[in-house]
């Protein structure tokens, strides 16, 4: 609780290894969840464990086993990258010589090998993000928490960050728990997702399985006569979502494809592309939020999704 405000309510999570994405609108409790897991705030009710350690009583032990990459700037601009990462290691209890050696290794890993002796105040946003990542993996943590790791990055830096996180999971063998407002980022790194809303878990599971629960659609690209085809399909009882010349028609079975072709034939529209649409995390998120609206009270509201 934050004063009278219930920040997290009835959260019941079991996170395994691999990538886990935490999603939710602002104020949904993502940061509070992180603080609870890090053992930084005392929970008023309930309990939990991270890596077998109680989050209420063993906060320092938990924090020595995990890495945390903060969302906002948390680097000393007067230090060089190698000194910053070394200090981050020393604060975990690493010997100075070990921390120095390790800081060179992780800076090489995050792509800053040639920049490691530059002061952080001269770094771009992407390089600062990479330095923060290096600080958080300096002790090879079993769990890595990344709060908005792609914040402020351009396309290439963002892709590099996501690839690096994926590699950290596959080669490091640990768990990466990340939050992001960009669904593609979550989908690119994580197999599992947890969605929060108003301090409650509204959905959790494998992204693939969640995507399978979304209504399936046929996506068509129409050239000429798209409006006529849309009207024809609506008149014949089909649900249609249209984005310019792209239309998505609810997939009820083989008869849907026949109906589309029949409609195109009747209206003279040219169907250039016809394929089954694969929903992504964005679709899942939007659908969940749409169903929750502002009146969602419990995860049971999502039954049947």
């Amino acid at each position: 609780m934050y004063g009278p405000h219930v920040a997290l309510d009835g959260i019941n999570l079991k996170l395994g290894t691999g990538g886990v994405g935490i999603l939710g609108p602002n104020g949904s409790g993502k940061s509070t969840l992180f603080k609870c897991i890090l053992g930084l705030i005392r929970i008023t009710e309930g309990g939990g464990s991270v890596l077998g350690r109680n989050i209420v009583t063993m906060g320092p032990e938990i924090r020595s086993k995990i890495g945390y990459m903060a969302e906002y700037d948390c680097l000393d601009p007067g230090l060089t990258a190698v000194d910053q990462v070394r200090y981050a290691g020393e604060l975990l209890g690493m010997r100075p010589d070990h921390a120095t050696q390790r800081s060179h290794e992780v800076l090489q890993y995050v792509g800053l090998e040639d920049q490691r002796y530059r002061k952080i105040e001269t770094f771009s946003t992407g390089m600062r993000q990479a330095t923060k990542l290096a600080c958080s993996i300096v002790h090879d943590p079993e769990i890595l928490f990344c709060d908005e790791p792609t914040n402020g990055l351009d396309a290439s830096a963002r892709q590099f960050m996501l690839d690096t996180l994926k590699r950290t999971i596959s080669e490091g063998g640990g768990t990466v728990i990340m939050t992001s407002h960009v669904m593609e980022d979550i989908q690119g790194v994580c197999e599992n997702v947890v969605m929060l809303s108003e301090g409650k878990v509204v959905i959790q599971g494998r992204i693939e399985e969640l995507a399978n629960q979304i209504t399936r659609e046929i996506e068509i690209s129409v050239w000429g006569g798209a409006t006529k085809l849309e009207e024809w399909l609506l008149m014949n009882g089909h649900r249609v979502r249209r984005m310019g010349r792209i239309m998505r028609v609810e997939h009820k079975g083989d008869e849907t494809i026949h109906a589309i072709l029949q409609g195109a034939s009747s209206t003279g529209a040219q169907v250039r592309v016809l394929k089954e649409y694969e929903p992504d995390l964005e679709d899942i998120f939007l659908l969940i939020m749409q169903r929750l609206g502002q009146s969602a009270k419990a995860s049971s509201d999502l039954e049947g999704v």
Partner: protein
Amino acid sequence: MTEVDGDMPLGETRIEAAYGSGDGDNTSTATVASAPKGQIFEQIYRPWNGTLGPRWVRNYAIYRHHVYGIVTGSGHRRYHPFVRLTLLVVILGSMTPILMLLLSSMFSGDASGFLNRMWGVNRYNLWGNILGYFPRNLCMWPLLTALVVGGLVSDDRKNGTSAIYFSRPISRLDYASMKWLSAASVLGAVILLTYIMYYSAAVVFKGEGWSYIADTIPIFMGGLTAGILLVFTYTSIGIALSSISTSRFTASVSFLGLVLGSKIVAWLIEIQFETTYIYLLSPYDCLAHVGQWLVGLPPNYNHPLAVSAVSLILMNLASLAVFASRVASLEVTRE
């Protein structure tokens, strides 16, 4: 290293908008020439199987980071070269009595006697080495404190570096105590060590024996205790001001304003109204009053010593309470 093949296709061009027009087509766009970029280094995740040290290792890392930065140019907390230069000037300035003692030991007769009276060990000089107003408490110790302590916590607030500490197994007590201790160590190294060096130099240069030491050591210890009180008080006030600010400049100027301003205001009021009670608001004067008692000097103040001592204790408690409260509010994840 992985080489980028020069013949590698760099992208593809799609001119989908070239076909058709009509309903929905007016929103079409062309996507051209997207080029994948090659990676020119080999990215390998290396595991680390070392063991992490206990609590004192982490705390010593904080202490070392802040103290070593004063003497080393890189690798630890950065102190501006001007700060380090000022520190050197303050150290050299506070050691000038040692030079005069050396001169005193080199001459004989009236010259030596004069130098010894002016700079030799006595109650006034021992008190003055710590608590003399000019130049030490007007120009040196407050400036030293402002420069060293000003950015200790305010920099963490400004840069968000508190997240580096609190996302690791560093408790707020460890953070606060190590920050305080590192600042006090630097102040102590300058103020107390130069005081000890002064007394030692007087013994060595004048070739004094055990009886001299036995006679003067109680006064010396009184001055040392006053010095410890001064270091404690200035560190506490300075770090409290640093913790409520996000600018080291504001914290430093606030400290100078508080220490020097309260003294000047109290002095003006004393001239106008002939009362010394207002000196209870001045940290320096409370220290000076208590220091005079410790060294055995007649007090310059009309109010009782106990009131100055209580005021000093309250100032320290208030400063530490503010510091603790502000450290408790430092965030790991910003809301």
